[in-house]
C-alpha cells in the first residue's frame, strides 16, 4: 500500500483502464453472443466483432496517449505501456484476420476461440504495463493459460493436443520455478513493487548481492521461457509445429511482444544499471544468452523441412537479436527493441498469413510443396518473399532497419562482439530463408493450378507486406515516435 501517491478518482481510474475494460467487455460479449445462437452455421460475423473489439481498445489506447500515471499501484499508464498495447492489439488483429477461414473449417467452437484471443490481448496489455511482481505473475500466467488452450484448440488433432500438453507442462514447471524465485525476491527485499525493490537493492547491495542472484536466475528462466530464448526454448519448436497455424502465428509474436516489454521494464526499473551486479553479471549473462539464442536458432533452422518448424527456429533466433537491444539498456537500445518488435511482428505475421493461405488450399506445410508458388499465386509468393527477406535483414525492408538499430545500440554499449555475432547470424539465416525462396521462385513446379486467397487473409497479407516495405523504406516517423516512447525509462 502506498498512500503517498495522488489518489485518482474512480472515473479517472476507469478511464486509464479503458483499453483493458473494452477488451474484457468485448470478450464477454463474444462469449454471450456465441452462446445465444448455438447452432447457427458458419458464424462468419465472429471475426468482425472481434476486430471491432480490438479496434475499440486501440482507440481507447490512442486517447490515453499523453498519460503518464500509475493505476491502482500495480499498473503503469506510460507511453511505453501504451506503445506495447498498440503493437499487441494490432498483432492480435492480424491474427484474427488470418484465423478466419482456418478456424471456421476446422473447429466447431469458434466463439471461444476469438474470446480467448481477446483475453490473450488483455493479458498482453496487462503484462506490458505491470509494475508489481504480483501483477506480473498474474498477467504472465494469464497469458500462458490462454496460450495453452489456444495451442490445444484442435482437440481432435493429435499434433495439436500433443503440442498443448508439452507447452503446458514446460510452462507450468517454469512458471512454478519463476514463482519460487519471486517468493525469495519478496522475502529478501520485503516488497513486490519494482521501484521499491530497486530502492532496497540500492541500499543493501553488498549484503544482498550473493543472495539475490539465484532467485534472479529463476525469474529470468521464466521470462526466457516466455520469449522462447535459448536455452529455455525447447518447448517452442514442438508447440509451434503442432499448434493450429494461426495460433502459431500468435505464439510467435504475442508472447514475445509482451515478454520483451516485461523484460525491459523489470531490467530498467528494478535493476538499474548503476548497480554493480546488474551492469556486470546480469549484462554478461543476458549477452551470452542473446548470442546463444541467435546461433542455436539459426543453425538448427538450417535443417528443417517443415515451414512452421523452420519459422519456429527462426523466431527463436529473432528473440536473440531482440535481446541484443535489451542488453544495451540505453535509450537507443530500447528504441531498437521497440522498432524490432514492430518490424518482427509485421514480418512474421505476413509470413504466417502466407503459410496459412497456402495450407488452407493445399493442406501442406512442407517446404518442398512450395515449389512454383510464384506461378500459382504471385502475390502470396511476393509477400512471403518480402517477409523472409525482411527476417533475414535485407535492405530496404523493416527487418534491416531494425537490425541496424540493434547492432548500433550494441556498439554504443561497447558490445562489439555481440554485434559481430548478430551480423554473422543474419548472414547464416539467409541460407534457410533462401531455401524457401528458391522453392517458390526457382524450383520446377508439378502443378500450375492457381491458388486463391480468402479476403480476410488478403487483407492481412496486404497490411503486412505494405507495412514491412513502408517501415523499411521510410522509418523516420516511426523511429522518432519510438525514440520518444523509449524516454519513458530515462527521464526523471
Amino acid at each position, binding site marked *: 500500500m502506498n498512500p503517498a501517491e495522488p489518489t485518482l478518482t474512480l472515473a479517472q481510474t476507469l478511464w486509464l483502464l479503458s483499453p483493458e475494460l473494452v477488451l474484457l467487455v468485448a470478450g464477454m460479449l463474444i462469449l454471450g453472443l456465441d452462446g445465444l445462437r448455438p447452432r447457427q452455421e458458419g458464424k462468419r460475423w465472429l471475426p468482425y466483432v472481434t476486430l471491432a473489439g480490438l479496434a475499440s481498445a486501440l482507440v481507447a489506447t490512442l486517447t490515453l496517449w499523453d498519460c503518464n500515471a500509475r493505476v491502482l499501484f500495480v499498473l503503469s499508464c506510460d507511453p511505453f505501456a501504451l506503445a506495447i498495447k498498440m503493437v499487441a492489439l494490432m498483432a492480435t488483429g492480424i491474427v484474427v484476420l488470418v484465423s478466419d477461414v482456418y478456424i471456421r473449417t476446422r473447429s466447431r467452437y469458434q466463439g471461444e476461440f476469438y474470446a480467448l484471443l481477446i483475453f490473450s490481448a488483455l493479458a498482453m496489455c496487462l503484462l506490458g504495463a505491470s509494475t508489481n511482481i504480483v501483477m506480473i505473475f498474474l498477467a504472465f500466467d494469464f497469458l500462458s493459460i490462454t496460450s495453452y488452450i489456444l495451442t490445444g484448440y484442435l482437440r481432435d488433432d493429435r499434433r495439436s493436443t500433443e503440442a498443448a500438453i508439452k507447452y503446458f507442462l514446460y510452462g507450468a514447471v517454469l512458471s512454478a520455478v519463476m514463482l519460487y524465485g519471486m517468493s525469495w525476491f519478496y522475502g529478501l527485499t520485503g516488497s513486490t513493487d519494482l521501484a521499491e525493490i530497486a530502492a532496497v537493492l540500492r541500499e543493501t547491495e553488498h549484503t544482498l548481492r550473493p543472495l539475490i542472484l539465484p532467485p534472479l*536466475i529463476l525469474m529470468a528462466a521464466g521470462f526466457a521461457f516466455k520469449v522462447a530464448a535459448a536455452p529455455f526454448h*525447447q518447448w517452442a519448436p514442438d508447440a509451434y509445429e503442432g499448434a493450429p497455424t494461426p495460433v502459431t502465428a500468435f505464439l510467435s509474436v504475442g508472447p514475445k511482444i509482451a515478454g520483451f516489454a516485461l523484460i525491459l521494464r523489470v531490467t530498467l526499473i528494478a535493476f538499474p544499471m548503476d548497480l554493480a551486479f546488474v551492469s556486470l553479471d546480469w549484462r554478461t549473462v543476458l549477452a551470452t544468452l542473446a548470442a546463444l539464442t541467435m546461433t542455436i536458432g539459426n543453425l*538448427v533452422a538450417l*535443417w528443417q523441412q517443415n515451414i512452421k518448424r523452420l519459422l519456429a527456429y527462426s523466431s527463436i533466433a529473432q528473440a536473440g537479436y531482440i535481446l541484443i537491444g535489451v542488453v544495451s539498456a540505453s535509450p537507443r537500445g530500447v528504441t531498437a527493441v521497440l522498432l524490432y518488435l514492430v518490424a518482427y511482428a509485421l514480418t512474421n505475421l505476413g509470413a504466417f498469413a502466407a503459410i496459412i493461405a497456402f495450407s488452407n488450399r493445399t493442406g501442406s506445410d512442407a517446404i518442398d510443396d512450395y515449389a512454383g508458388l510464384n506461378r500459382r499465386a504471385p502475390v502470396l509468393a511476393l509477400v512471403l518473399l518480402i517477409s523472409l527477406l525482411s527476417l533475414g535483414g535485407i535492405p530496404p525492408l523493416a527487418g534491416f532497419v531494425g537490425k*541496424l538499430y540493434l547492432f*548500433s545500440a550494441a556498439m554504443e554499449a*561497447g558490445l562489439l562482439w555481440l554485434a559481430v555475432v548478430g551480423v554473422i547470424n543474419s548472414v547464416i539465416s539467409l541460407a534457410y530463408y533462401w531455401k524457401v525462396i528458391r522453392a517458390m521462385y526457382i524450383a520446377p513446379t508439378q502443378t500450375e493450378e492457381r491458388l486463391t486467397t480468402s479476403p480476410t487473409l488478403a487483407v492481412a497479407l496486404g497490411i503486412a507486406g505494405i507495412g514491412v516495405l513502408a517501415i523499411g523504406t521510410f522509418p*523516420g516517423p516511426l523511429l*522518432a515516435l519510438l525514440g520518444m516512447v523509449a524516454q519513458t525509462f530515462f527521464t526523471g
Partner: protein
Amino acid sequence: MSILDLAWLIPFFPFAAFVAVSVFTYRNRVLSHRLVIGGIAASFVLSQIVFWAAALLPVGGGEHAFESALIPWLPNGLEVFSLGVYIDPATAVMLFMVPLVCLMIFIYSVGYMHGDPRYSRFFAYVSLFATGMLGMVVFNNLLAFFIFWEIMGTCSYLLIGFWYEKESAFRAGLKAFLVTKVGDLFLMLGLALLYAEVGSLAYRDIFSPETLEHLAHTPFLGTSFSMATVVALLLFGGTVGKSAQFPLHVWLPDAMEGPTPVSALIHAATMVSAGVFLVVRAFPLFAAIEGGVQMTVVAAIGAFTAIFSSIIAIAQNDIKRVLAFSTISQLGYMVAALGIGAYVAGAFHLITHAFFKALLFLGSGSVIHGMEHGHHHAHEHGEHEEEGEGAFNPNDMTYMGGLARRQPITFWTLVVGGLALSGFPLITAGFWSKDEILAQAYELAPAVFWVLAAAAGLTAFYTARMLCMTFLGQPRTKAAAHAPESVPSMTVPLIILAVFAVGLGWIGIPEHFPVIGGLIPNWFHHFVGSTIEPTHAPEHAARAMGHAAEAIHGFVWQPLALGLAFALGGLALGWLVYGWKPMQAGERDRVEAAMRKVWLGWFYDAMRNRFYFDEVYRATFVRASIWLASVFDAFDYGQVEGKHGVVDGLVNLAGRVGRGLSQVSDWLDSRIVDGLVNLAGRAGRSISEVSDSFDLGIVDGLVDGIGDAVRAGGRFIRPIQTGRVQNYLLLAVVEVLALVVAFFLM
C-alpha cells in the same frame, strides 16, 4: 530550384522501367526492351545535364558539393536526417560514365539476348541493377549507399545465375552472393560502428572536419587503433568483397557464367568498381590519420591483387576468364592508387577502365556469339569435328584462331580495347590513367610502383596473347572457320565504346607531359581533385593530398620510361610468342611448354588452377561451417529410434563432439597440410581428388544438401530435441543450475 534537385530522377527512371516490365509488359519482348532502354536513356540525358551543370556552373562545380534534402528519413538522436541528393565532382564523373556504359550495353543486349526465353526478365533485372548503381551514386548518405549496394548485389546474383538450369551458373551466382556477403558483413559493421559513434551517416556529417578529427582521436575500445582506422578498415572490407580484391576475389571469375553483357556491365565496368568508389567517397576517413595503418592495408592489398591476378590471367584459356582476372588486376591498380593517396588517379583509372573493359567484354561476347553460330553452322552442314567434339566450349581460345578475317569490326575494336588495357602510349585512355598512377606511385611508394609496373608488363603480355590466339593464324576448329560477324546492334556499341577508349584519356593529360602536355588542360584532375577541399579535410590529410598533387606538377621521366618499357615490352613479347608464328590446332600453350622445360611446370599448374584458392576455401571455410552446423544441430536435432534418455544423449554427444574434433584435427593434418604441400607443387594431383571428394560446395552444404547433411548429422548425433517434454525440462534445470554456478563463480 536547381536542375540538380532533380537528380533523384536518375535512378528513378530505370526503377520505373523495372516495375513496368516486371508487372505489366513482361509478355511483350519488344515493348519490354524499349521501356528499359528508354528508361536508361532518360537517365543518361538527365545525368549528362547534371554532369555538365556540375562541371560548368559554380554550384557543385568543385567549390561546394551540392546537397538537397528531400524527405525526412531516419531520426538521428532527436532530429531527423534526410534522404537527399549529393552531387560532387566524384559523383558527377560517375554519372557521366555509368548511364553511358549502361545504355551501350543495354542496346548490345538486344542482339545478344535475342531469342532467350527469359528475355524480358533479363531486361527487368538489368534495369533494377542500373537503379542500384545510380542510386548508390547520387544519394547523400552511407545508409542509402548500402541499401543500393545490396540491391546491386542481389541483381548481380540473379544475373550470374540467369541461366539457372546450368548447375555451374546457379552455383556461381550463389558463390558470388555469399562471398560478397562476407565483405558486406564488414561494411555493415562499419556502418553500425560509425553510426553509433557519430550518430549520423550523412556524408556532410561524417566527413566534416570536426567528425574526422573526433574519429581520429577516439581510441577504439581501449585498443591503440583509432576509431577512424577501424571504421575505415571495416568499410574497406566491403570494398574487398565487392571489388573482388584478394582474398575475396574468388567469386568474380565464376561470375562469368552470366550472360556476357552482364559480365561487361556488372562484373567489369560498374558494380565491381563500386567498391573503389566507396573508398573514393570515404577517402577523408581513410586519410584522417597521417600514416594510418588503413592506408597501408589498402595499398598492400591492391598491389598484391594487381600482380597476383595478372599472373593467373596468363595461364587461362577461357577468353572471359582472362578478362575476369584482368578486371581483378585493374581493380587492384585502382585500390593501390587510393592506398598511396592518389585518389584522383584512382578515380580516373576507374572511369577509363570502365569504358575499355566494357568494350573488351562486349567484344569477347561478339567472338563467343560468332563461335556458337559457327558451331551450329558447321553442324547443319554435317561437317563434324574430330575428337573432343562433345566438349566444345565457345569461350576457349584454343578453339579459335583466324577470326580477324571473319569478324573485322570485332577485331579492330578489340585491338583498340586491348591496347588501352595494356597502356599503349599516347593514343589510348588506359595509358594516361595508368601512367598517372605509376607516376604518383614512383614518388609516393616505390615498392608499390615496382609491383604495379611488373603487373603492367604482365597485363600487356596476356592481352597480346589473348588477341593473337583469338584472331591471328588459321582457324583451329570448324566453328572458328564458320564464325560470322555479329549484328549491328552489337557492333555499333563496340565502335562507340572504342571511341571513348581512345578519346577519354585526353581529358586527363598531365600538364607537364612532354610536347602535348598543356595543349589540353588537365581537366579531370582539376575537377575531381576538388572533391575533397583541402580546407575541409583535416590538416595532415590535406598535406597528404597536396603532396600527391605536387608529384604530378613537375614531370619525372623515370616512371614514364619504365612504364612504357614494361607495356611495350609485354606487348612485343606476347606478339613474339603467340603472334609471330600463330598457334596450330592441338598445340600446347607456349608458355606452358617453356615453363615445363625449365622444371616450372608445377608453377604453371598452380597458375592455371588459380593458386588453388577455391579448393582451399572449400576445404576450410565451407567444410568448417558445415561441421559447425552439424555440431550445433546436436543440441536440437532428434532422430529417435530406440528409447534413449537424455543421459545417453549427453554421453553420446560428448563422444560425437570429441570424434568431430578429432576428425577436424585429422582433416587439418591431411587436407590443409596437403594443400600447402600441393601449392609447393609436390603432389599436384591429390588435392583435386581430395577436393572432389569434398565437393559438397557452398551450395550443397548450406542450402541444397540439407538432406544429405541431415542424414550425416543423424548418424553423427544423438537427439536432444527428442520430442519428450521431460527431457526438455531436465535440460532447463541443468541450465538454471549452470547459470547459478556461473554467477557464483563470477
